[in-house]
């Protein structure tokens, strides 16, 4: 699996993502946002961080980067695109995913481990998980409150496009388990074709025992298996 990890000015989880891809046996490459080279990659990942300082709106300025035209084209061709945290925000700003991520309801940056439930185990990003499995994964964001118009939300739920939801440790969708005020406890969604996933929690930070959890590994192994069946 050849993965382009796109670095924007202000990305700060690019290295973590690179290492996570490497850990499962993928071949990551950093691609600088001004270098428009996505040919030859099996997947594109947009890392977390604070592209352009999150100024204006998280992801708004990065979305204007030259490479985003290529990312959009890559996604439209059916190429897998994963956006984590700031990457999710960029995907929404770019229109590859619906809705927007606004300021956390607490008005504070929220950094902690959360539990999320796998709502879709049939995407190329999640196939190594069992449906309904509860993962423990860190979040760290100030603008992760998922909002969309009523119609969009109905459609997302109706089409089953919510990939992850914030839940309690025993898997219940509760208000207390919602760290940022997201609608319907949404933590991650996919596009209608299922080849673009955006999520606020950081699976790349839960890939080794020393970090406190390995629950995020499944995301990377799923992609590896889906994209390079021979290697699996």
């Amino acid at each position, binding site marked *: 699996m050849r993965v382009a990890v796109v670095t924007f000015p202000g990305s700060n989880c690019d290295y973590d993502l690179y290492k996570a891809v490497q850990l499962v046996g993928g071949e990551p490459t950093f691609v600088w946002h001004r270098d428009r080279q996505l040919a030859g990659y099996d997947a594109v990942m947009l890392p977390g961080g604070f592209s352009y300082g999150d100024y*204006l*709106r998280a992801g*708004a*300025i990065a979305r*204007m980067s030259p490479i985003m035209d290529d990312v959009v084209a890559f996604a439209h061709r059916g190429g897998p695109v994963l956006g984590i945290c700031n990457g999710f925000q960029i995907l*929404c*700003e770019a229109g590859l995913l*619906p*809705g*927007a991520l*606004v*300021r*956390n*309801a*607490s*008005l504070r940056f929220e950094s902690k481990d959360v539990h999320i439930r796998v709502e879709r185990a049939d995407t190329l990003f999640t196939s190594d998980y069992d449906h309904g499995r509860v993962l423990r994964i860190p979040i760290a964001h100030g603008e992760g*409150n998922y*909002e*969309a*118009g009523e119609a969009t939300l109905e459609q997302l739920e109706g089409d089953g496009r919510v990939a992850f939801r914030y839940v309690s440790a025993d898997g219940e969708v509760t208000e207390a388990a919602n760290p940022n*005020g997201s609608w319907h406890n949404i933590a991650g969604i996919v596009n209608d074709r299922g080849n673009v996933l955006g999520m606020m929690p950081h699976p790349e930070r839960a890939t080794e025992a020393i970090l406190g959890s390995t629950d995020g590994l499944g995301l990377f192994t799923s992609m590896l298996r889906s994209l390079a069946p021979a290697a699996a």
Partner: protein
Amino acid sequence: MSSHRIEIRVKPRPGLLNPEGKAIHHALVSLGWTGVEDVRVGKVMYLDLDAPSPEAAVEAVEAMCRKLLANPVTEDYEVSVVGEAEVVG
């Protein structure tokens, strides 16, 4: 060509939650200001723009809003000319 100072107000869409406004409302009430309702918080931006006329300046800035400055999913915007800046260059 002269420089126009533009004010842009970017406001949260009605109907969407505005946690910041809610928190401010709460704080105002607990500080004793009771007759306050419906606090909403957005952004105000100022910029100077070279344009042949105020109308042209507003038009250009509205294009900036559509493209970048406001998020159509969550925000509305209003643009106004607040003065002629000192001529630049």
